[in-house]
């Protein structure tokens, strides 16, 4: 209930920073953890010994640990305060399972840790015990995406002797005052099978609850009279796979909403409308305009002849001039700062940026609404109960009736409000009218004064995203290939390059992105000229123009010359080249269409002896077409790869594997040249 990671900018770029921070933290934590003073030895509690003596759940030889016992007890007081007890017992099976011996409990201003204990029952010798005074505390685990400040902290404890063969366990007792009376029981684990998991709920008189099960058959509770218990057993581990759907759409959960009279707190959400009302209430008064905002809005829009031009100017201001900074304290994890404050400082997080843009749009007579979304497609589905599993806020902008423009792609029609343009002001690189792939084909909560409604963000045409490459090249009889490439990088492909180029610290490094890309296809080459276009004009497609010389590109074999016409780029993947059968669907980043047109002028005195066959592979989810032709002394290779559906179910996995192999073969195919007249 304490996760407040309510903002997500461009994921991959941010992840790099997190990873780097993690490296030094890991070292520091280790330094401290191994120096934690000794606590007295004490026997592990009875519940842990009982669990330790039970049979192991089914597992394979790669399993690092099994969860023998899991128990969550939620006791609600009449004033809405909650006491929560969490118990876990693991058996460590392999050396890599030692990581389960380090556990943490999160807390913030609304959550207090009353007690935290850990024990080890070694296979030989006396039990070990560690207590709260042995813990280290940090605010860094709660920091995501480089937020400047958050009040979310963690206590971390390391249990001694968490070695293979030993059983470790812990108990955390907390007092919670959640902003929303809702809990989530996550009983399924990644890579750890669960033997038994229990959840107990105690409610005071007059309180009610509602549960929704996700990705697991519903289990009826036992008990009654204010006390209920649920139990599941032998829950298989989820084995992570590359490109799999998000955790919330594959793991078993029970979402528990509570209804009573918690003072100053909101009951669990009955539905999305109720959640929308709460969200709207949080933003109440936050979009009031200040004289400074009025003035700036007038200044920005002064030269815009049309409403669309004014909207674009405001969007650009928000993308470029309002810096991303997140300060999330208390309810600030959920509630935006007031627009005048955001404008004054010229910084804010995603909901702040949405708030200020909404305020400025309102000044030019354009309505807009918050749209809560998750950057991992599939986290929220129509089956998901109303819960705060969103991590980002964008804006749904109501388009004036007379505004029709072909550049506005991401438009939905919402019955009550008409046409809405979905725009992410936190995304510095995606132009007004578009939306990056990870947010497409996703469910999002539209927040309006009437409440909220789950709506589906549509998928844009494949042609809005991808690489369109054209090359005119000359091959010599010694195998040297030289010539010019022109690339247009649309959508997310342009965004990635813009973000990368803007992060370089010296001009000389700009060419490195091209060198890296080319080196994945050519073994020996020199980039002789390189430039980019529309780096800062995000409403125009980003482009690269470069020239190269590749020595020994064509290989001699006897008197033959072997030429791979594909030259650059790859659309294949070895994602499915695994021994184990695929368990989960494959999710694409977004729709895309990549197209290559390569023209190679052949060396004098050579003619084509053999050409690769054309490829035509069409599936419901994707297609690939390629063709190699000769016209005079020019070898012409064209190909197109298109992603049409963003999720490929397991039932079509063999087709996807086959498609990737077809593409891989085509990418390696070679044209054979021979001396003319032979």
């Amino acid at each position, binding site marked *: 209930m304490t996760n407040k990671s309510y903002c997500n900018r461009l994921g991959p770029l941010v992840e790099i920073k997190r990873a780097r921070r993690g490296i*030094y933290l890991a070292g520091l934590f280790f330094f401290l*953890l*191994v120096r*934690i003073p*000794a*606590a007295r*030895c004490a026997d592990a509690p009875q519940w842990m010994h009982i669990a330790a003596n039970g049979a192991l759940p089914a597992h394979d*030889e*790669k399993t690092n640990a099994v969860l023998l016992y899991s128990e969550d007890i939620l006791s609600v007081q009449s004033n809405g305060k909650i006491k929560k007890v969490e118990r876990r017992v693991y058996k460590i099976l*392999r*050396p*890599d399972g*030692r990581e389960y011996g380090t556990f943490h409990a999160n807390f913030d201003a609304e959550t207090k840790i009353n007690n935290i204990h850990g024990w080890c029952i070694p296979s030989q010798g006396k039990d*070990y015990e*560690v207590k709260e005074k*042995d*813990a280290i505390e*940090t*605010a*860094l685990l709660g920091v995501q995406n*480089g937020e*400047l*400040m958050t009040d979310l*902290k963690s206590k971390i404890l*390391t249990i*001694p*002797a968490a070695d*293979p063969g030993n059983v470790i366990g812990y108990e955390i007792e907390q007092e919670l005052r959640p902003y929303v009376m809702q809990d989530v029981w996550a009983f399924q684990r990644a890579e750890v099978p669960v033997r038994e998991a229990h959840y107990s709920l105690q409610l005071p008189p007059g309180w009610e609850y509602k549960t929704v099960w996700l990705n697991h058959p519903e289990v009826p509770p036992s008990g009654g009279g204010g006390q209920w218990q649920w139990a599941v057993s032998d829950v298989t581990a989820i084995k992570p796979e590359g490109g799999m759907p998000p955790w919330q759409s594959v793991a078993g959960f029970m979402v528990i909403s509570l209804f009573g009279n918690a003072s100053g707190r909101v009951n669990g959400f009955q539905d999305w409308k109720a959640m929308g009302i709460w969200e709207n209430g949080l933003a109440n008064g936050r979009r009031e305009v200040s004289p400074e905002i009025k003035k700036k809005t007038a200044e920005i829009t002064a030269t815009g002849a049309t409403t669309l031009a004014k909207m674009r100017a405001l969007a650009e201001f928000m993308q470029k001039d309002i810096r991303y900074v997140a*300060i999330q304290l208390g309810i600030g994890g959920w509630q935006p700062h007031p627009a005048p404050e955001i404008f*004054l400082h*010229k910084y804010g997080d995603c909901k702040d940026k949405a708030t200020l843009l909404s305020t400025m749009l309102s000044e030019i007579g354009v309505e807009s609404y918050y749209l809560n979304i998750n950057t991992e497609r599939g986290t929220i589905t129509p089956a998901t109960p109303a819960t705060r599993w969103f991590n980002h806020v964008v804006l749904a902008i109501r388009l004036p009736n007379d505004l029709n423009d072909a550049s506005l792609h991401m438009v939905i029609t919402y019955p009550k409000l008409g046409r809405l343009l979905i725009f992410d002001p936190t995304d510095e690189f995606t132009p007004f009218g578009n939306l990056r792939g990870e947010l497409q084909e996703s469910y999002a909560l539209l927040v309006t004064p009437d409440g909220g409604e789950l709506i589906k963000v549509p998928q844009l045409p494949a042609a809005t995203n991808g690489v369109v490459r054209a090359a005119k090249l000359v091959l010599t009889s010694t195998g040297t290939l030289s010539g010019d490439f022109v690339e247009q990088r649309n959508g997310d492909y342009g965004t990635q390059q813009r973000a990368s180029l*803007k992060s370089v*610290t*010296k001009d*000389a490094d700009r*060419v*490195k992105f091209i*060198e890296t890309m080319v080196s994945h296809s050519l*073994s*020996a080459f*020199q980039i002789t000229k390189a430039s980019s276009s529309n780096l800062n004009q995000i409403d125009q497609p980003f482009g690269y123009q470069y020239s190269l010389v590749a*020595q020994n590109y064509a290989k*001699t*074999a*006897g*008197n*033959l010359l*072997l030429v791979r016409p594909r030259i650059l780029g790859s659309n294949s993947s070895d994602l499915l*080249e695994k021994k184990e059968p695929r368990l989960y669907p494959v999710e694409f980043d977004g729709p895309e269409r990549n197209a290559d047109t390569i023209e190679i002028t052949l060396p004098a005195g050579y003619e084509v*002896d*053999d*050409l*690769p066959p054309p490829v035509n592979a069409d599936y419901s989810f994707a297609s690939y077409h390629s063709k190699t032709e000769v016209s005079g002394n020019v070898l012409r290779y064209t190909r197109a790869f298109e992603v049409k559906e963003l999720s490929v179910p397991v039932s079509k996995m063999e087709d996807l594997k086959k498609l990737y*192999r077809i593409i*891989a*073969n085509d990418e*390696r*195919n070679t044209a*054979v040249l*021979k001396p003319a007249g032979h």
Partner: protein
Amino acid sequence: MLVRRTFLLIFVFAFCMTVHDVRLASAGDEWQSINPEELKMTSEPQAPGAPAIILYRQVDRDDSDVRRAHEYNYIRKKIFTEEGRKFADVEIPLVKGKWDIQNIKARTIKPDGSIVNFDGKIYEKEIIKARGLKYLAKTFTLSDVQPGSIIEYHYMIDFAEYLVFDSNWVLSDDLFSKRSKFTLKPYGEWALQWSWPNGLPEGAKPPVNENKLIHMEAQDIPAFQAEDDMPPEAAMKYRVDFVYSEDGFEKEQEKFWKRQGKKMNEAAENFVNKRKAMEQAVAEIVAPSDSPDVKLQKIYARVQKIRNTSYELEKTEQEQKRAKEKEINNVEDVWKRGLGDGYQVTWVFLGLARAAGFDAAPVRIATRDDHFFKPNMMRTKDLNTNVVLVKLNGKDTYFDPGAAFTPFGLLPWSETNTSGLKLDKDGGTWVTTTLPESSVSQILRKADLNLVSDGSLEGKLTVTFTGLEAQWRRVGEHNEDEAHRKKLLEDYVKEIIPAGSEAELTNKPDWASSAPALVAEYTLKVPGWVSGAGKRALFPVGLFSGPEKHMYEHSTRVHPLYFRYPFEKTDDVRIELPLGWQVGSLPQAVNNDAKVMAYSLKVENNKGSLHLERHLRSDLTILEQKYYGALRNFYQSVSSGDDQQIVLQPIGASGGN
């Protein structure tokens, strides 16, 4: 007067200086005057493309009054791009009870010269809190920062009373620094020594001591940029180190090391001097008839069987208490208890070798994994580990059995080709440890495969890792289980084959010993290795060329290149063609001998059986930046050679060649 200096504080300080972007700035006027030229700047010619630069940085440390030691920091940055605005987020570390950050002042100067004083909140972020320790950071962000803005802030670090410790000025920053000024007013009761181990930025004059104030200025310090295969950062960044000593410093290098050498020798000899115990022990290990080689090998092998606690997982204090491990004071303790750390184990080897009649000496060396040893720095701690020098059959040979899994006659890579002090009662003599030849550390890949009709390769593969190639893999896996080791070896094969492949380990490699070779056997399948070309089929020759595919992608380089040890890779691959197919043409043999690097490739056809031999050798450990282009060209030629194709065609078809 009580002055506390602890290892912990040095650690804490090092942590802060390393981790955080913020650099520490003299009292005086609160703000430096604004130069209109700085306001107009849109770029810095000496740092083209930089998102921001440091215009001015000032660090004034005053240790003179141990009750009020403090450090004033002032920093001014110019923001050039949107990306550079991130430098408006400031984080200043502190350790509660040890030092505090006071009087933080900050402001933004907009391109038009208007000033936005920082009046926002300064947060105190908890980095780590544990028993008796509290690491915090004061954090804030400046308002209204845009490209063209200048941001600046200053603050005071107030150290706790009686807290004086070694410090440094790290001159290199992630950003180009236009002008920097540093001062240190030292604590007067102790001697202070300062040095700049990696040199100073071009044009910078060394620190000067005037009127008990050490000061220096530097201009135009390039931004520090990390690169792959570069020497350790600690050996590359410009910095000035300050070291206090209660006992004073020896000014002459030779005298210093003589004195330290004597001390180290005394400590080593006191630990080793258990002649009787060692003689008894050695009698159990060797036979009188053993040759010197055999004797020493037996001793080495036996010593490596001692439980080496340096390679065990670090125990929590509870586990240590329960283990009741007593202090070890000499080689006899190690021998009797059957355990010791790596350092102690190596000295046991010294004791046993001497007891067996060998001329053996203790040597303290500096490992080259973190920084490069410079004797003129006169830092004893740089000689951070020990080896034993034995005269074996008239030849000086170095041994470190305390470094687990190191084969007889070898040292771990970080101990090779590095300086050390061979200890004796007179202080010792300087030596350099040996660097093993490339042939010592090899990866041999021998495959017997069949090309099947669907274009796949199937068969058996044996990979033999020798010397240091075996040693580091064994060290890395010593606390892992069989499943982990199996995965490591199978993943290795997938990495070296530049296509999807299936490898299944079929043997149980010897992970436990220090044998020179670690052998892994597999069944291997590479689907679709052969591609079609009309009536022909093409077979790429670089089956195990994956690691060399994307070496040195970029045409420019800033730092020298640094490699751990010389190595060789040898491939011996035999492939049976399917019935009905024959070789149309073979690629020409390649033999590229660039002295310190060499690559050769040869393919033969023996009646439908292909034989591929590929050899790659590197004798490099360090290479100047100016030779980067040559190295890149070499690897491009390797990759080009590996991309060559064997043309296959149906028997009876005319290939036109």
